[in-house]
């Protein structure tokens, strides 16, 4: 699972406590992705203006034959006839809506697992909209032995910026192996000492590891 997909799933869990509505907006003919995005921005503006307090999540999906279309998860009922009218006004074609149980709100995450097409590079495949505080990718942290060790080393050795990134990764990987083999606690050296309190020999023994400190 990627960080982005995890963030999307956390966001769906905080969207609401009641069943949600999943909307799909498509075009009559396949348009290029930039035009689709422009039309989506137009439609979203119309929707948010018409249905006050509307909030939810949108996911872009690039279909092989139908081009780019948009899936939307909202937490409130919208009049489908009115939504269709707005979609036509913004140049969209077919509109489909269905009610989905809360536990299936993460269903759209499957589109985030697909390999990202070249034309969607640097795009936000999903985003929240409306007045609510959804989980961003920056709010999500990885939790594993490696990440705990990396964070402890970062704090102990005062790592900042991007300089020496690969050397730091080498060092954290080495410490992860040493931690497992020596039975140390994650993020600590021998005898439960913090990395900053350990000598070079404590941490690396006789090994030659490129260390950035």
């Amino acid at each position, binding site marked *: 699972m990627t960080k982005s997909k995890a963030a999307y799933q956390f966001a769906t869990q905080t969207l609401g406590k009641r069943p949600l509505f999943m909307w799909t907006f498509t075009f009559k003919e396949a348009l290029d992705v930039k035009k689709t995005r422009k039309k989506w921005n137009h439609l979203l503006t119309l929707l948010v203006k018409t249905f006050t307090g509307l909030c939810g999540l949108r996911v872009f999906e690039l279909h092989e034959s139908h081009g780019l279309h948009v899936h939307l998860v909202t937490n409130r009922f919208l009049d489908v006839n009115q939504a269709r009218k707005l979609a036509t006004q913004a140049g969209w074609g077919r509109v489909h809506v269905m009610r989905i149980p809360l536990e299936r709100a993460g269903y759209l995450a499957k589109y985030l697992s697909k390999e990202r097409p070249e034309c969607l590079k640097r795009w936000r495949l999903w985003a929240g909209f409306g007045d609510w505080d959804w989980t961003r990718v920056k709010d999500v*942290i990885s939790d*594993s032995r490696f990440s705990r060790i990396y964070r402890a080393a970062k704090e102990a050795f005062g790592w900042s910026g991007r300089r020496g990134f690969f050397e730091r990764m*080498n060092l954290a990987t080495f410490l992860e*192996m040493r931690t497992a083999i020596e039975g140390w606690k994650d993020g600590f050296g021998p005898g439960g000492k913090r990395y900053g309190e350990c000598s070079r020999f404590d941490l690396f023994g006789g090994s030659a590891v490129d260390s950035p400190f």
Partner: protein
Amino acid sequence: MTPEELLRRMLLGHFILVGEVRAADVGETGFVDTKTGLSAKILRITYFVELPHNGAYEIAKIIRFAPRGVTDPAQVPVGVEKGRRYAFDLDSIERKHGFLHARMRTALPELIEFGVPPLGAPAGAPAAAP
């Protein structure tokens, strides 16, 4: 698994790595939302395996994921004993950050049973215990 069986599987196209287990454990890995405290985690078994390399050695990290839905680490068999040599049926392998990282299939590692002392063992060394 005997060396003959190991060779047979390799000839069948299995991607197998053989090494001595230095450490193995079960741990949770995943993501945490710092805003809400929600988490998505899965259990992962990690093996640190020593591989002999022209007189020197290097350590490889091999991971295997527990089946979905299993949340209790006690229910996940590690399937190895420290200090013994096992065959790991791999799914993928890469050299990352100066170390070998591999991912296993779902099958447990299999103990290699040597009838004779392993290649490279000092003269007079006993055969590895079954």
